[in-house]
C-alpha cells in the first residue's frame, strides 16, 4: 500500500477545533490518514465535512489543535503554504475550473506556474491526463462548453497534474445530473485502485463500498463513528449514524 515504503501517516489531525464566530464547527477532531488510504467522510449537511476537508489544505484556518501533513505542521502562509497546497489536490462540488482558460490550460497552469515545468512538457502531460479521464478531445474548449460530468473530470485531471500526495474531494458528484455521476465516480474508483490517498466527502454509498478503506461519520462538528464501509453501512453502531443512514437510504 505504501509505494515508498514510508509507514508514517500522511495526515494527522490532533484535537482540531474550529469556530465560525460562536459556531463550533469542528470539535476535537482526531483523524489519521495513511498513505494510499481512501477515507470517505459522511454526515448531515452542516456537520463540518467541508470545513474538515478545507482545513487539511488550509483553505480554512483552525483555532485549536494541530494538523501535520507528511510529517510537517501545516505552513501558515506564503511560499511554504503554497507549496503545501500544491501537494494536496482539491476537487470542489462546483468544479471551479478557471472559466477564462481552455481545458488544457486549466490542467497545465499549475505545473507551469507553480512547479516551473516547461510548457511543452506540461502540455504533453496534460493531454495524457485528459485522455485518462476521457476528455482529450475537448482540450481546446472552454469549461462552459462542457457538461458537469466532463468539467469535474477535468478538475480531477487538474489536481492530478500537480502530482499531489493526496486529493481532497468535497462532494464531487453532488452538483451533477444523475446520469453524469457514474462517469466521475469511475475515475475516482480508478484513482483509488492506483493507490492515491483520498479524502472524499460523499453520500455515494456505492463508491464508499467499492473504493473506501474507511468511513468517517460526522455530526455536529464531531467524528461520531469510524468503521470499514461494509460494517458502517450494514451495522452502524451509533444512533446518530443509524438515523442518518435511514434518511439517505429512503432517498
Amino acid at each position, binding site marked *: 500500500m505504501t509505494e515508498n515504503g514510508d509507514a508514517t501517516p500522511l495526515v494527522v489531525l490532533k484535537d482540531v477545533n474550529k469556530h465560525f464566530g460562536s459556531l463550533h464547527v469542528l470539535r476535537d477532531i482526531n483523524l489519521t490518514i495513511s498513505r494510499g488510504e481512501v477515507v470517505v467522510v459522511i454526515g448531515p449537511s452542516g456537520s463540518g465535512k467541508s470545513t474538515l476537508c478545507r482545513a487539511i*489544505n488550509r*483553505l480554512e484556518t483552525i483555532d485549536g489543535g494541530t494538523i501535520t501533513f507528511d510529517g510537517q505542521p501545516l505552513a501558515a502562509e*506564503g*511560499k511554504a503554504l*503554497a*507549496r*503545501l*497546497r*500544491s*501537494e*494536496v*489536490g*482539491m476537487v*470542489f462540488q*462546483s468544479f*471551479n*475550473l*478557471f*472559466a*477564462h482558460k481552455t481545458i488544457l490550460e486549466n490542467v497545465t*497552469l*499549475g505545473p507551469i*506556474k*507553480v512547479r516551473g515545468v516547461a510548457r511543452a512538457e506540461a502540455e504533453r502531460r496534460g493531454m495524457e491526463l485528459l485522455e485518462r479521464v476521457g476528455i482529450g478531445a475537448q482540450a481546446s474548449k*472552454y469549461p*462552459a*462548453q462542457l457538461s458537469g460530468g466532463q468539467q469535474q473530470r477535468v*478538475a480531477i485531471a*487538474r*489536481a492530478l497534474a*500537480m502530482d499531489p500526495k493526496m486529493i481532497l474531494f468535497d462532494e464531487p458528484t453532488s452538483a451533477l445530473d444523475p446520469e453524469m455521476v457514474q462517469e466521475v465516480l469511475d475515475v475516482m474508483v480508478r484513482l483509488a485502485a492506483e493507490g492515491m490517498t483520498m479524502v472524499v466527502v460523499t453520500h455515494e454509498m456505492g463508491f464508499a463500498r467499492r473504493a473506501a478503506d474507511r468511513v468517517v461519520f460526522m455530526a455536529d462538528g464531531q467524528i461520531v463513528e469510524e468503521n470499514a464501509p461494509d460494517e458502517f453501512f450494514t451495522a452502524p453502531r451509533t444512533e446518530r449514524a443509524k438515523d442518518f443512514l435511514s434518511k439517505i437510504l429512503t432517498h
Partner: protein
Amino acid sequence: MQALIDEHRVILEAFWLTIRLTLASGFMALVLGTILAAMRVSPLPVLRAIGTAYVNIVRNTPLTLVIVFCGLGLGLVLDVSFSTSLSTNYLWLSIIGLSAYTAAFVCEAIRAGINTVPVGQAEAARAIGLTFMQNLRLIVLPQALRSVVAPLGNILIALTKNTTIAAAIGVGEASLTMKTLFEAHGDAVVPIFFGFAVAFLVLTLPTGLLFTWLSKRLAVIR
C-alpha cells in the same frame, strides 16, 4: 466654416494633443487603478486602508483642483520637472493629474469586476498552490478586467472629455485652442464651437462602440 478650414492644422494639432493626453493618462490610470484595486482586496489591512483612502479622497476632489495642484503645487512649488521645455513639463504634470484622478474610478470599476468573479475561482487557484499575487494576476484580474470592459470604456470617454481641464494649466489641447480661435475669429464662434464638439464626438463615439464590441467579445462565459 472658412475659419475651420483655414485653421485646420492648428485644430488637428490640438486634437492630436488631446489624443496623446487621453492615451497616456488612460494607460497610467489603468496601471495605477489596477494596483489600487489589488491593494483594496489584499490581505494586508494597511494596503487596504491606503487604497480606500486614496479612492475616497481623489474621487471626491474636483478634477480642476487636482490639475491645478499638479501644475502649480508639484510644478512650481515642489519643482517637479520632467523636461526643460515648459510646455512639455506642464503636459506631463497634467498627465499625472489626469492619471491620478482617473485611477480612482478605474480602481472602483475593477473592484466591482473582482466581485463578479466567483470565490471558487480564487479558491481553486489557491488549492493548486498559486500565491496571492499569481492568483490575482493569472486568475482573478483577467476575469475581473474582462467583465468591466464596458465601464472602462465609459471611463476612457470621460477621460477624453476631462483632458480639456489641462487647459487650466496652459496645456494647449483642444479646448484651449478653441478659446484662442474664438479670440482670433470672433465672427465664427458658432461654427468653431460645433467643429470642436463634432471632433470630440469623432473621438468618443467610436471609443464607445469599440468597447461595447470588446466587452462582448471578451466576456467570460460561465
